């Protein structure tokens, strides 16, 4: 039987050899993972969220366990855009895998400025984080109001020719409107979802576990929420949706494709099983072959009801 075609086109020239990426924030800038897996086999490499200036992040403890998942309040610690371009990007350019830079700002001006600075060779696409629950300014505030989001995406769109992915928050009263707004403003693809605001309390100490008090829930615990959002959003927009949220196996990935995702991002699972990506990619390929599916498009959104 012919091998299934795993390549996926996410628009504006962003073609991945397979639909599996990491989720931002679970891969740093690739160096650690390059020592244990072959980065060339990934569909895309998504960097840790970058800000214009380096960011120290939140006080520790920054991670706490939850049932089937974890709550993190890293606070977007990152090296900043200049150091990334100088010290991290040259390394990532050495792989035959598109580099997708996740970025966020404290203001519209910052988002725009970053998009300009990131429009350089070696960066295949930009993923706008408008939905991190762990930053006070910016972040999630942009991700709650469709009009504000639309203006932000429109402003960024004007400044870059790179494929533009918008990563949406699950914490919106109408995520389909948010998605439509991002599409109308020029987004090429959407990532659904980011973590869900959450907290963990230690009853012995009567204190929150996280230094930041609250954080974002990720891992298998949020998969059903993410699936539902991908299902809703993908039927509402005409651009590719990247599924993220609790994907831990090729079976999870297939479920996201059935719900309407064109590609997936594996996040928290990478922290627990850092060697899992090759198996997930092979598993997807095997599933497609076993079901006589020759290309991913044939399964995307084909949930039988």
């Amino acid at each position, binding site marked *: 039987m012919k091998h299934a075609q795993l390549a996926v086109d996410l628009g504006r020239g962003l073609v991945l050899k397979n639909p599996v990426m990491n989720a931002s*924030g*679970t*891969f*740093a800038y690739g160096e*650690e*993972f390059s*020592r*244990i897996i072959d980065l060339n086999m990934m569909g895309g490499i998504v960097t*840790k969220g970058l800000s214009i200036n380096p960011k*120290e*992040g939140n006080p*520790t*403890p*920054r*991670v*706490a*366990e*939850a*049932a*089937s*998942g*974890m709550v*993190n309040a*890293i606070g977007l*610690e990152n090296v900043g855009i200049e150091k990334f371009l100088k010290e991290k990007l040259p390394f990532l350019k050495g792989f035959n895998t598109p580099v997708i830079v996740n970025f966020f700002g404290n203001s519209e001006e910052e988002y725009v400025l970053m998009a300009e600075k990131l429009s350089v060779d070696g960066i295949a696409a930009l993923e706008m984080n408008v939905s991190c629950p762990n930053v006070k300014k910016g972040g999630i505030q942009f991700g709650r109001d469709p009009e504000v989001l639309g203006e932000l995406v429109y402003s960024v769109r004007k400044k870059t020719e790179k494929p533009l992915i918008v990563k949406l928050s699950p914490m919106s009263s109408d995520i389909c409107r948010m998605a439509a707004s991002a599409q109308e403003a020029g987004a090429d693809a959407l990532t659904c979802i980011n973590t869900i605001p959450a907290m963990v309390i230690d009853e012995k100490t009567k204190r929150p*576990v996280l230094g930041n008090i609250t954080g974002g829930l990720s*891992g*298998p615990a949020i998969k059903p929420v993410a699936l539902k959002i991908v299902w809703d959003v993908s039927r509402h927009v005409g651009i590719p949706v990247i599924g993220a949220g609790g994907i831990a196996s090729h079976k999870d990935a297939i479920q996201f494709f059935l719900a309407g995702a064109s590609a997936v991002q594996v996040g*928290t699972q*990478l*922290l*627990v*099983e*850092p*060697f899992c990506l090759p198996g997930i990619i092979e598993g997807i390929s095997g599933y497609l072959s076993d079901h006589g599916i020759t290309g991913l498009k044939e399964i995307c959104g084909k949930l039988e009801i």
Partner: protein
Amino acid sequence: MKELTSTVISNRQIASNTYLLSLECEMDPYIPGQFVMVKAPSPGAFLRRPLGIMELKEGVLALLYKTRGEGTIALSMLKEGEAISVMGPLGNGFRIEDEAQAVYIAGGIGLPPLLSLYNKIKKGNFLIGARSEEDIPFDYIPARAEIATEDGSVGHKGLVTDILSGMNLKKPNIIYACGPVAMLKKVADISRHMNIPCQVSLEERMACGFGVCAGCVVKTVSGNKSVCALGPVFNAEEIIW
């Protein structure tokens, strides 16, 4: 770093809430102070648990741990012949001074990495701090170890740092410490006053264990550093306590 499936040889209680897990494990050689991430066999334990390596000899990995929460309680229930996923060795271990007239200070569950180090150097003074006599695995600690317990049930009544500051010993040329942050901070203070180099092994809540999630950072004089990847052993003077 490798991911290995290891088989339990034995897993037994050796002190109050303290267990020794022996695993058949083909792990690469390690440096004392390095650790492994183990996957506890419990649906309630999602993240791996970082455990300091006590010994790796002839394909047998020995891990000493205390039961604290769901994950370590699940670990304590592992039976001989069961399989467990282990990743390691991880982090940077102690930098060993050959001629060390060393002092080792272990507080609570800070014991395994220092036992590992002591068993390699086999010289120096070993100090142990614990809540009570029943918390100390006597069969596994150096015969001449000096002990401090908070309840006074054995050894000096008080903190292990009291022994260090009141030591009538020849001035050590290095201090190695692992234990609660409050203890390490005190040890760092004392070592600074005595002008003795001091290496501390830190503990922090971790998710990945190999430097990608930035969950376990510590503030140092040169910025945030991941405890898992750039530690867990640091020079005490590097840390902003």
